[in-house]
């Protein structure tokens, strides 16, 4: 599989299909395994972890984790790959941090402690920290799971904007098929580590892939406003 610059790709698949593994192998949170990954034509293991961090930014699964930092401090950590041990942040770093917070709508709670935020706000802050990393590719692991509809939509809108305006490549693993269909140009379906579909969302909706993927029947309808396909799990 290969992902082009500026693409917006959603990875779907049942639990245990290898979505998280794929993302964690890409930024080397997990090492080992067989097979090879190349980024910009260069094999993954020729990159230092720091070089990799300047290319790939990562938003972890919202697992309820907290951090003993203020939001500003937290977003500042995205600048880590650009600073060495004794340099403090420069004004251009500050600018990047402020912009990342603005893009994600987190500027208002810059000085609040991370653990006083709600789950949705925290996820936006994680996204801001990833944007501050200024990678050309954003890796997201279930970015909107556990969030309320408003936060889901806000996060998706931000992703779309970052993709279109800044040309950031996005690879997002998700269980939320409908939001994937709504926002990604390309869907990759994984089952037990194998790719069983790779193509646009409307093509996916016209196939039996979802049925194979989840071993369950689905109804396909249309969004009344956007006309995009909507997937509903069939009731038995």
């Amino acid at each position, binding site marked *: 599989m290969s992902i082009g610059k500026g693409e917006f790709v959603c990875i779907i698949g049942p639990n245990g299909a290898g979505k998280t593994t794929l993302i964690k192998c890409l930024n080397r949170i997990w090492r080992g395994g067989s097979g090879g990954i190349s980024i910009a034509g260069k094999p993954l293991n020729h990159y230092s972890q720091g070089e990799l961090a300047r290319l790939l930014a990562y938003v972890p699964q919202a697992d309820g*984790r907290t*951090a003993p*930092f203020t939001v500003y401090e937290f977003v500042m950590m995205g600048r880590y790959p650009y600073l060495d041990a004794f340099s403090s942040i420069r004004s251009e770093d500050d600018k990047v941090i402020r912009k990342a917070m603005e893009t994600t709508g987190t500027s208002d709670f810059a000085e609040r*402690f991370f*653990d006083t935020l709600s789950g949705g706000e925290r996820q936006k802050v994680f996204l801001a920290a990833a944007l501050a*990393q200024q990678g050309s590719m954003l890796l997201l692991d279930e970015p909107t799971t556990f969030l309320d509809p408003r936060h889901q939509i806000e996060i998706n809108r931000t992703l779309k904007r970052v993709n279109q305006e800044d040309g950031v490549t996005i690879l997002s693993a998700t269980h939320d098929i409908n939001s994937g269909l709504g926002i990604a140009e390309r869907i990759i379906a994984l089952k037990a580590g194998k790719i069983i579909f790779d193509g646009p969302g409307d093509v996916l909706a016209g196939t039996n892939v979802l049925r194979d993927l989840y071993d369950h029947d689905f109804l396909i309808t249309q969004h009344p406003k956007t006309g995009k396909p909507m997937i509903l799990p069939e009731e038995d």
Partner: protein
Amino acid sequence: MSRHRFWILTAIAMVSLAVVVIAPFIGIISTPPRVLWGDNGSELAADVFWRLRLPRVALGFLAGAALAAAGMAFQAMFRNALATPFTLGVSSGAALGATLCIHLGWSFSILGVSAVSLSAFFGALGSLMIVYGITLCRSGFSTTTMLLAGVAVSLFFSSLILFMQYMTDLTSSFRILRWLMGGMEVVGFRAVTSAFPFVVSGVAVVFYFARELNLFAVGDDFAVSRGVDATRTKTALFLATTLMVGGVVALCGPIGFIGMMAPHICRLMIGSEHRYLLPATVLFGGMFLVLCDLLARMLIAPAEIPVGVITALLGGPFFVWLLLRRSSSGAFLT
């Protein structure tokens, strides 16, 4: 924010300085400052000041600083509010070394460092190597494995210590017990100079990795995806802090609570940004142990209370009070 921190740090530094300067003058034999210049012929007082109290205060400060700094690093790396260097079996390794030495009746000294201290140091080193070895045996480097290995080694060593203490004669048994309670009864600066390089290099390594500690405090995946080489960084941190703690514990015995408590208290005052937290923790830990040692010397003078007893007696209730007072402030890791 930054200005606020600067003032807190300055305040902690001033108070620490005051404590370190005043502490050596306090004791059963009164030592007014003028005796230092030896005018009124009180050579005993001057001797007590230079050869007993000053080295003791210096060692106390070094030990407190080292234990606190190591505790701070461990809490961040394990993302666990209860992690201390002792969690990795350093103290039980040191205690086993010391116990063995007392039990076998070794008595020699190298460069002014006693046999008990040397054995304790090698005990600490040995337990570190065992724990580290177990961690590396399992594929990959997992802090959870390390934590569990540390607990297992600690428990195993503790049983060996109890066994030896049970088998040995009464005098040795008491010496072992006394060593386990911790204390800083040193004479002269030899002990201080032997601990100094360990503590300074340990604190320097922790400071060098302060930003990595910030990232580890959020999570290993977060740190790695920000470009931290986690295995290398953690290995360097573990080695440096454990050597530092080993060096201190060998001289002072396993003094509990400071490593866990000092970083938390400082977090409440100054936040968790480790570049500010470390200097605060080092100063506070040093000052706190000097104060505890002062109490240990004074409370039932002329007898002394083991300083480990004081740190735990003061630390326990204070810690509970902190826990109950603050619910959410970004001050705790978990």
